[in-house]
């Protein structure tokens, strides 16, 4: 099963199981979903519940908030995270703030799905990674599926939550296939997990960076370095406990983040390890991040701007073995 199919199954289950659930977004219906995630759902659930919206990101996101207040369980699809900047005001100033600023009177059970990430030669306006921005906002929660099983069940976890949840789906993962393992405990969806145990270094990743981090761990194994790979899964709340436990064991850590380095989410991980594990660290926590540049179209430049398996491998090996003389 591909991650795309797993996400679609998650949507189908949600729609079939709860008449309050609806999907709103640009081209989710007639077109079949710009990344084909919602393909076929229009036929199954009709145009009211698979609701094509005009090009009005701000309004239909805000309408999702209102619909959630009105008793529905809307899933908003923002075609890509880049366009979500147009809707950010509603997410930050209304969705995230409403409950607290009303003194706890309202819940906003809204799920906002967005395709994120680079790697498809889409250029400077279609390749952003704003994971850290969404993770910055109290009142929001942020889930990032990176495996078929998580893709299949995270939507359910997000919908079960009474508060607004942003789900970031990486464009490069949609075609990945894998085995669907059993339905995880709901609470597990919100916790970091060890994708590969290891003793020498903790490699911390999430979403689109997970596959190449696992690949780097395999390469490291060939040179005798036993790397642990942590998949954060939830960026907000962040699972400090498992994160710190892993790094305290391995005494070295590397964070892989597709986003621009300065003030990206990797900085938060590094800061938390500074605060929670400084005395157990045998080396500085390293960040392997995207280059600080609007994403270029040309493949060789885009590749150079993104964290690659080889980069992760190289930096991890230096952390464990020391820099080459």
């Amino acid at each position, binding site marked *: 099963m591909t991650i795309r199919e797993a996400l679609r199954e998650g949507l189908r289950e949600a729609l079939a199981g709860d008449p309050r659930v609806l999907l709103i977004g640009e081209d989710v219906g007639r077109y079949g979903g710009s990344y084909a995630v919602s393909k076929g759902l229009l036929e199954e659930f009709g145009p009211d519940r698979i609701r094509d919206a*005009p090009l009005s990101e701000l309004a*239909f996101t805000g*309408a999702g908030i*209102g619909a959630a207040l009105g*008793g529905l369980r809307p899933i908003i699809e923002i075609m890509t995270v880049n366009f979500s900047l147009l809707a950010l005001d509603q997410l930050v100033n209304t969705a995230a703030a*409403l*409950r607290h*600023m009303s003194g706890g009177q*309202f819940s906003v059970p809204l799920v906002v799905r967005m395709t994120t990430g680079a790697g498809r030669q889409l250029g400077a306006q279609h390749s952003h990674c704003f994971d850290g921005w969404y993770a910055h906002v109290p009142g929001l929660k942020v889930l990032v599926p990176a495996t078929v099983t998580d893709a299949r069940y995270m939507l359910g976890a997000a919908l079960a939550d009474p508060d607004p949840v942003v789900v970031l789906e990486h464009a490069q993962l949609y075609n990945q296939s894998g085995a669907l393992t059993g339905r995880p405990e709901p609470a597990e969806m919100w916790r970091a997990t060890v994708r590969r145990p290891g003793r020498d270094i903790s490699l911390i990743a999430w979403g689109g960076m997970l596959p190449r981090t696992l690949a780097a761990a395999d390469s490291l194994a060939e040179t005798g370095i036993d790397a642990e790979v942590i998949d954060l899964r939830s960026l907000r709340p962040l699972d400090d406990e498992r994160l710190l436990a892993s790094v305290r064991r391995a005494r070295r850590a590397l964070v892989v983040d597709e986003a621009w380095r300065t003030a990206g989410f990797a900085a938060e991980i590094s800061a938390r390890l500074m605060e929670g594990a400084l005395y157990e660290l045998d080396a500085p926590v390293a960040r392997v991040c995207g280059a600080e540049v609007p994403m270029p179209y040309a493949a060789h430049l885009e590749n150079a701007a993104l964290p690659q398996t080889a980069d992760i491998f190289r930096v991890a090996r230096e952390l464990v073995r020391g820099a080459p003389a």
Partner: protein
Amino acid sequence: MTLHGLYPVPLPRDECTDLLRQMLRIRRFEEACAQWYGLQKIRGFLHLYIGEEAVATGVIRALADEDAIVATYREHGHALVRGIPANSVMAEMFGKVTGCSRGRGGSMHLFDATRRFYGGNAIVGGGLPLAAGLALADRMQHRARVTACFFGEGAVAEGAFHESMNLAALWKLPVLFCCENNDYAMGTSLERSQSQTDLCARAASYGMPAEAVDGMDVVAVALAARAAVAAVRAGTGPRFLELRTYRFRAHSMFDPELYRDKSEVALWRERGPLHTFSDRLKAQASLTEEDFLAIDAAVTAEIRDAVEFAERSPLEPVEDLLRDVHTPSAVP
């Protein structure tokens, strides 16, 4: 624009008294606010509605309990007319835990879930998408409810206005858009902010029925609102009311009012919604001076009590600061 003001008031006497009393409640409430702001018991931004009372009063009295309201940062009047007790609105102004938002919202963020009062939104235009969504929920769940959405004429320039108007019209959502045209957005007059100053023409361009109403005449507002609410409730799609009004006070307590002449304000004050309405009622003998004084005394007492209540109310314990960032839930 229909001028109802010239005719005998076509409403039963008790309804007229109610409208008058509501407007007076707003007026006295806000006069107290201005005073207590001066005493620094109320802080932050304070936007007074004085002069515009007929708008909230006329529209909101035309709504049913099950209807919803979305308002702006200039929403004390809307909250009061909707029935949020003056005590709890005033306590909110004072930042007390007995306030309608536990003192966390203040003047700009009044909320009341039980009365379907969805704020209190301080982002200009920010309420319109929300209103569309509330109405979508009603429509999809086959509830004949109306969502009244208030915003200033300044908001008409925002992208949020355009997107929401289109969405509501396209999806035939039961929203009553109420544009409070007081001719100024802070210091910027309508003609300096809109190429199209006929706001009904703007609304009509979305294929939405639109009507301009004398917002200084509470009866005109009430009648227009009733008709519009009925049409929206009947499922004919959204409607737009332009309520032509004026704010007598500064935009907020920081505004030096450099942008308009005192004479302009004076002219509009002559059309003040309170005295013109009570004069009319008196002229047609539906109200005596004693009636008026009695109402005013009761309202004044209500507001005095509210201030007292606010003053002696406790603050939210500081340990509760992080409470309700999220809804209590098992996971995560």
